[in-house]
């Protein structure tokens, strides 16, 4: 194997070494970005003329919603790597990411509901986007439950990878079906690459920093949890070793 190959990091020992060195920096970046972005957003942005101070929820709602979807995409990629190349770290990273994605989904749903209450006059509407996130949350629950239900780690990795593939297709299908089922109250995308179409400049930079903070938070948590999963696998292997000795 080529020494510069990225698959080098798929070796658990190598992964532990590199991630252990990187993790403090990730945590520092997370703390810095989240503190800056959220403080700027909370203290340093004006109220919206229509939505009042509720617009500050944007700085949690949008990054959490982004990460809820990106976490699933990361799990999909990791599952594919496991199926195709059978790198154990990849399967464990998918397992580690699932609860993080689920919590991000809950945050997106909760902040959406709290935000919607004064705007729409009700805590919950079956708005297509909220509903899609609700569906995504159920997929997360199923995925986590399947991991926990199977004793053999490699078999669990195989079966959850199949579920992740099927779930990805159906999460996407559900999204379009839900848009067919109900037209929404949501505003269009709040952030795009074209700054003219963006939310007001006053919100742009703090939002960007918050998104960076959430991405770093996700990465830190996934690294930490993957390290834990690797240790759990090694512990299991050592216990097997002792039991046979």
């Amino acid at each position, binding site marked *: 194997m080529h020494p510069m190959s990225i698959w080098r990091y798929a070796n658990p020992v190598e992964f532990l070494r590199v991630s252990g060195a990187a993790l403090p920096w990730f945590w520092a970046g997370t703390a810095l970005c989240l503190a800056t972005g959220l403080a700027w957003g909370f203290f340093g942005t004006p109220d919206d003329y229509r939505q009042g101070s509720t617009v500050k929820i944007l700085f949690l709602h949008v990054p959490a919603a982004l990460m809820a979807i990106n976490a699933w995409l990361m799990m999909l990629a990791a599952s594919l790597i496991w199926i195709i190349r059978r790198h154990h770290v990849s399967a464990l990273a998918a397992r580690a990411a699932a609860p993080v994605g689920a919590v991000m989904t809950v945050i997106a749903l909760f902040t959406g509901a709290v935000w919607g209450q004064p705007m729409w006059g009700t805590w919950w509407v079956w708005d297509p986007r909220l509903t899609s996130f609700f*569906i995504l949350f*159920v*997929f997360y*629950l*199923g995925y986590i*439950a*399947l991991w926990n*239900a*199977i004793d053999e780690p490699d*078999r669990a990795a*195989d*079966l959850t990878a*199949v*579920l992740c*593939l*099927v*779930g990805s297709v*159906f999460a996407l*299908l*559900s999204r*379009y*079906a*839900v848009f*067919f*089922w109900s037209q929404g109250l949501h505003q269009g995308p709040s952030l795009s690459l074209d700054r003219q179409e963006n939310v007001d400049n006053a919100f742009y930079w703090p939002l960007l920093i918050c998104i960076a903070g959430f991405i770093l938070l996700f990465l830190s948590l996934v690294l930490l949890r993957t390290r834990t999963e690797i240790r759990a696998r090694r512990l299991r292997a050592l216990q097997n070793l002792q039991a046979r000795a």
Partner: protein
Amino acid sequence: MSPLRAVLGRELRLALRSGGGAGLGLAFFLTVILLVPFGTGPDPDRLATIAVGTLWIGALLACLLSLDRLFQTDFEDGTLDILALSPLPMEMTVALKCLAHWLTTGLPLVIAAPVLAITLNLPGAAAPWLIASLAVGTPALSFLGAIGGALTVGIRRGGLLLSILVLPLYIPTLIFGAATVRAAIDGTDPTPPLLLLTGLTLAILALAPFAAAAALRINLR
């Protein structure tokens, strides 16, 4: 007798013999529909507004009920090992088992649904669309259920997990199926959702056996 007919005939025979539980799904469906008015009150107008949702969700749950038997008994008595080594591809075996499941569970629901719709005061004009949407949609329920059944086949008492895995997969089918009947009630054109439902079902019939067979092979290792 061809291998295809052999598998299908055996599945049907097993479902219809004692302990097969072919009628249980239908009985469950009847019971659910019986309970609904106790929850909502007997007002016919109110019942009419929820009839479509009740019938479709009742069908969904009745279908779910028997899914854990789809592969579990064959897995436990070793039949699945031999089926996996037979000349039939695993995907075909899965598809045939799903077809048998639909014939013994889904089809009775399709036939019973319009009768029960009358008790829920569903407008008569919508009844043909209810039959059509269920006839087109319930095969997808059996085939999607096979994925969940295959994933949980090695898990003891996996029935609850199976429902958590399978029910979210039913969402698009439920949306288009119920939308067809609702459109008929509202007087709009019910064909677009019915066509979407048909396309969805065909795609599921084509692809689900591959996912289920892959999961079964993993569980047979």
